[in-house]
């Protein structure tokens, strides 16, 4: 299939925007001006000002002399780019591939899109009339290459739609400026009397290169389609994305359900055929009022099961506000993982292991209600400091890289922060005789220890801990530690856990 591109040219991009926001300016001449080398220079003029001979590049003082009632408004740097980005977002409804063409244009890759609007003529007409009805003075053109579309949008006089392979003919009568050349090159062409592309297109390439440089030839080739032109897309291609434009805006929960089902079916069919499953998916709805709403789901294991994924979305439909209606749904799988083909088990063990799909589906359900961040699984870590002796597992498939240590006793319950206790101890480096915790006196009858655990000095500084496992008169077992070496005043004792 041939590539087709639309180039849109906003002739008065920034001034149109201001007129929209301040309708009182509609009948007045006004310009944007910015200081350049100590002078105020016009950067954009509205159609009325332009009709009186003011163009970008005139100094503001000159312009005021020409049109005494001219309004000069300070230019905001970057507003054009920002505006183009917003317009580009709006144009997503026409094509998923949009690129910004600074300073005043947009380029849409519309290969295979136009037939949805009943042909290129209607398609272009729709884009241009919708934009014009919004108040933007826009010209557009469709051609096989970005260069030709750009040229015809700005300089074309005959027709805006250049059929496949006709770009050379269309370019012949245009001025060399239509080729997006450097000002220096343009000036040189002008001096040499090349007023249209026709006059130099037949000249040998080596001659052209010698006179005007490699860039000149590149631009010419890009316009003619001999050279590829990469586009910087507004939304880089998301490979796993499905779109569902709606004839009528969707407003009901049932409608949204059907839309989600249709999108999921398409997406899952593709995922399944490629042996992949989705981990996160984002559903977006483009509403009639121009707002975009979105919701997302996540799974613990890559999945392409429509039913399961739909159940996850089902919980979110209530939060998905259609307002006046949604005219376009997109479903994007933002995180994809390979699913190794599963062999049907001839004889499955009774237990439901960590790799079981039932467990993964259960966790997805829980995660959607209480948040995936609240579900943990821990793996051992080769560190002694108790708080850091384990690390959260990233997925259900993670295998422990080390074994769980059982040589040293570890308490069943660990306080997240050790709590201070009062102790009476007779001898340094022996367990205390009694300790007071929460107002209760515990007489220590038996004790094991000390187990000295040093801090990881390369990570943090501080005293080591001497841990003791102690048992009081009633048989309750605790994990105590003294922070640092024994000394009369500074020894501090803490309780850190409870043993079974």
């Amino acid at each position, binding site marked *: 299939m041939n590539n087709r591109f639309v180039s849109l040219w906003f002739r008065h991009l920034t001034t149109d925007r201001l007129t929209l926001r301040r309708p009182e300016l509609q009948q007045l001449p006004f310009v944007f001006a910015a200081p350049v080398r100590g002078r105020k220079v016009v950067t954009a003029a509205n159609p009325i000002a332009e009709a009186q001979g003011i163009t970008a590049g005139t100094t503001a003082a000159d312009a005021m002399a020409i049109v005494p009632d001219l309004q000069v408004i300070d230019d905001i740097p970057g507003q054009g780019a920002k505006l183009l980005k917003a317009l580009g977002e709006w144009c997503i409804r026409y094509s998923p591939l949009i690129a910004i063409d600074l300073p005043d244009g947009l380029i849409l890759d519309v290969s295979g899109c136009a037939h949805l609007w009943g042909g290129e003529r209607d398609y272009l007409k729709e884009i241009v009339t919708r934009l014009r009805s919004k108040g933007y003075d826009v010209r557009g053109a469709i051609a096989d290459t970005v260069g030709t579309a750009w040229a015809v949008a700005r300089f074309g006089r005959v027709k805006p739609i250049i059929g496949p392979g006709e770009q050379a003919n269309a370019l012949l009568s245009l001025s060399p400026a239509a080729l997006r050349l450097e000002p220096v090159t343009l000036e040189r062409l002008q001096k040499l009397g090349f007023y249209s592309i026709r006059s130099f297109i037949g000249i040998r390439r080596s001659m052209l290169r010698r006179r005007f440089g490699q860039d000149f030839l590149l631009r010419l080739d890009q316009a003619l389609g001999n050279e590829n032109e990469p586009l910087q897309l507004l939304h880089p291609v998301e490979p796993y994305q499905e779109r569902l434009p709606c004839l009528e805006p969707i407003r009901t929960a049932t409608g949204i359900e059907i839309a989600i089902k249709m999108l999921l079916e398409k997406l899952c069919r593709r995922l399944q055929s490629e042996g992949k499953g989705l981990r996160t998916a984002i559903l977006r709805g483009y509403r009639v009022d121009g707002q975009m709403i979105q919701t997302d789901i996540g799974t613990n294991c890559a999945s392409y099961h429509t039913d399961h994924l739909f159940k996850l979305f089902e919980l979110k439909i209530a939060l998905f506000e259609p307002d006046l209606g949604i005219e376009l749904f997109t479903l994007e799988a933002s995180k994809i993982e390979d699913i190794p083909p599963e062999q049907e088990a001839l004889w499955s063990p009774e237990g439901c292991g960590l790799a079981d799909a039932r*467990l993964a589906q259960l966790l997805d359900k*829980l995660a959607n209600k209480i948040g995936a961040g609240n579900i943990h699984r821990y793996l051992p870590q080769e560190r002694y400091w108790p708080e850091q*002796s384990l690390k959260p597992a990233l997925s259900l498939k993670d295998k422990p890289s080390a074994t769980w*240590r*059982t040589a040293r006793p570890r*308490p069943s319950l660990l306080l997240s922060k050790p709590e201070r206790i009062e102790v009476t101890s007779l001898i340094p480096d022996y367990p205390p005789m009694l300790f007071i915790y929460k107002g209760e006196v515990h007489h220590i009858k038996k004790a094991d220890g000390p187990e000295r655990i040093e801090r990881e000095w390369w990570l943090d500084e501080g005293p080591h801990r001497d841990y003791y496992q102690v048992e009081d008169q*009633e048989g309750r*077992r605790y994990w105590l530690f003294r922070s640092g070496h024994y000394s009369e005043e500074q020894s501090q004792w803490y309780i850190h856990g409870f043993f079974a």
Partner: protein
Amino acid sequence: MEQLKRDIISRLQKGILLHQGFNPPAAGVASVVGLEPVEAAFPNAVFPIGAIHEFITSSREQAAASIGFMAGLISGLAKKGGACLWISVSGKLFPPSLAAFNVEPDRMIFIDVEREKDVLWAMEEALKCEGLAAVIAEVGGISFAQSRRLQLAVESSKVTGFLLRNDPRRLGTTTCVARWQITPLPSELEDELPGVGFPRWHVDLLRVRNGSPGNWKLEWVDRRFVPVEEKMERMSLPERQIA
């Protein structure tokens, strides 16, 4: 005549048990090692799997002891390679300690919820998932209706549930098959050696459906339960000589 009566009564009792869902143990079902004296208290003398057990704890020490005992039970249940779920609000359990009780801590999935209401919801959802080895939840109060929902879930899925009740003031009637209270006991070492011995508990089976409540002393030695035989009433070990 007496013999005949006894036979009839035992047959009728078996029939009642069947109606109440206590099936006689299938051949080859291994019981938890060392728990035989406790199991005798249950109907058919088998530890009920696919039911809900509740553990009453009034202090953190008791909770720690209950966790130890529970971990010992789970080690028997998780032998087939199932995963376990631990649902709680506080999340104070220290996973490496489970390794000492034969439970692989990485098979345990921890669900930390914010509200207690969600604990029961999460537990019910988890109990519906067939094939899990055990689901443990820490809750304060639970109403009869809520416990019945859990019971209905386990009846179809045959998952074993453990409730760790941390508020002894809010004990009501529940559908749980057994109510336990585990209290730590002073440990003892052979030959009066100094130091802390194996975990030892006073296991109190307060309430059991169709069984007889009782209490036992158990110890966790060498990765299995060992009943503590009542030794001669011995003075507690002399205090560790200090200095």
